[in-house]
């Protein structure tokens, strides 16, 4: 019997077995489901579950204890506040934080001395906000049901990464178009004349962006989208800036930030597109006559597997030996 192929088959079988074991583990331990959540969070929480279910106790705590998220939220809300362009008269304003979550964005508002009312649909997130002793008032409320606020009283509204949730239909009774309409009309009603609303959003595609904007325009808002860092896929952030009342938007809509403003770009963009010389003959690919990864590599890998507690065949003189040419 030839040892080589046989061994191979054996290995393959082992692998299969291991995979099976892992499969069972997947089903049994809650740890793995957490892992899945992390993965899901990294992509789009909207696709996983409705907000009040997705942001449960564990997710809410994780959200608020991640320093990365805290930093992002703080910088986003600072920028939103900047875009809100409140009059600089030193008088604290009454602001609205829609989808305030655990109050990370509200903290920025408090730091600037403003009073705020935050609303969110996830009780777990609000509980964390209470624990963190945020200064604003909290309401458990669904923005898609409209805001139950008196007309003309709010000096400005911000919302960080929340409005795109409205585009989902999480229940049979949900109709995204109607929910957006209810939200924007009630928001328009409760804002004071000339007040602005700034929403940082992650629309999934152009259709969603269009849906949100058209709902806002139908409600009577004027405004547009400010895009920060439009050329960076990671840093790119979109803000929908809306104004109600007779204020002309043209002059007040600020420009999006770009890398150049931040002094990060070194003009590399101009260098990305270059003509390549078509006539130069293609470089001959040097043939790598060293086949395989070598004995050292195999031994290292096997050691690694052993450390993980896997069943690994012993190292013998046959390990990683050179095959005859005929093989």
């Amino acid at each position, binding site marked *: 019997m030839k040892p080589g192929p046989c061994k191979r088959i054996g290995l393959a079988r082992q692998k299969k077995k291991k995979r099976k074991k892992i499969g069972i583990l997947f089903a049994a331990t809650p740890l793995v489901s957490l892992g899945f959540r992390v993965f899901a969070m990294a992509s789009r929480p909207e696709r996983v579950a409705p907000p009040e279910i997705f942001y449960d106790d564990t997710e809410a705590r994780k959200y608020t204890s991640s320093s990365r998220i805290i930093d992002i939220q703080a910088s986003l809300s600072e920028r939103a506040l900047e875009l809100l362009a409140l009059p600089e008269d030193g008088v604290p304003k009454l602001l609205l934080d829609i989808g305030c979550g655990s109050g990370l964005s509200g903290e920025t508002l408090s730091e600037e001395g403003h*009073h705020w009312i935050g609303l969110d*649909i996830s009780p777990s997130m609000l*509980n964390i906000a209470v624990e963190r002793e945020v200064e604003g*008032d909290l309401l458990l409320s669904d923005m898609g049901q409209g805001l139950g606020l008196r007309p003309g009283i709010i000096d400005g509204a911000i919302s960080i990464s929340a409005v795109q949730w409205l585009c989902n239909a999480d229940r049979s009774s949900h109709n995204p178009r109607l929910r957006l309409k209810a939200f924007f009309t009630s928001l328009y009603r409760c804002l004071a004349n000339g007040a602005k609303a700034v929403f940082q959003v992650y629309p999934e595609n152009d259709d969603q962006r269009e849906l949100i904007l058209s709902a806002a325009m139908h409600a009577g808002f004027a405004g547009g989208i400010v895009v920060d860092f439009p050329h960076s896929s990671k840093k790119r952030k979109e803000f929908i800036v809306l104004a109600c009342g007779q204020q002309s938007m043209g002059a007040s809509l600020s420009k999006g930030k770009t890398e150049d403003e931040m002094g990060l770009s070194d003009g590399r963009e101009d260098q990305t597109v270059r003509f390549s010389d078509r006539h130069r003959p293609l470089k001959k690919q040097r043939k790598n006559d060293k086949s395989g990864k070598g004995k050292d590599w195999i031994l290292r890998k096997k050691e690694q597997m052993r450390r993980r507690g896997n069943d690994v065949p012993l190292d013998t003189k046959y390990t990683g030996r050179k095959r005859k040419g005929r093989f």
Partner: protein
Amino acid sequence: MRLLTHNMLSSNIRGVVNGFPLKIEAVKVVEKSVDMNTDFLKNMFEKIEWKAFVEASVSMGYTELPEEADSSLLDSDEFLSRFHHALLELHLEEGVLVCPETGRRFPVSKGIPNMLLHEDEEQ
């Protein structure tokens, strides 16, 4: 929830014409002192529905606000400090908000009013 927020809140149930003011049934009220900002108070005074504000503060157990108020009172420090106390320092921690038209009860727990509507109440 502070009375500032209470004075802004109205019931949002389908068919309700006047959902303001929500009646307060207080179970637990706490006081947290915050710094006074006269400019903010003067700014807010115009927006506050005074009658509802006084009623709410009475139901929270604070009775030192005058029944009627106009902007001339804003020069009085005593009035301002009472206004400040009622507006920003009284928190409804546990209790119920009641819709004036339908009698629907919105529970308040840990200072957070639950304003979620049932499906048949949505607009």
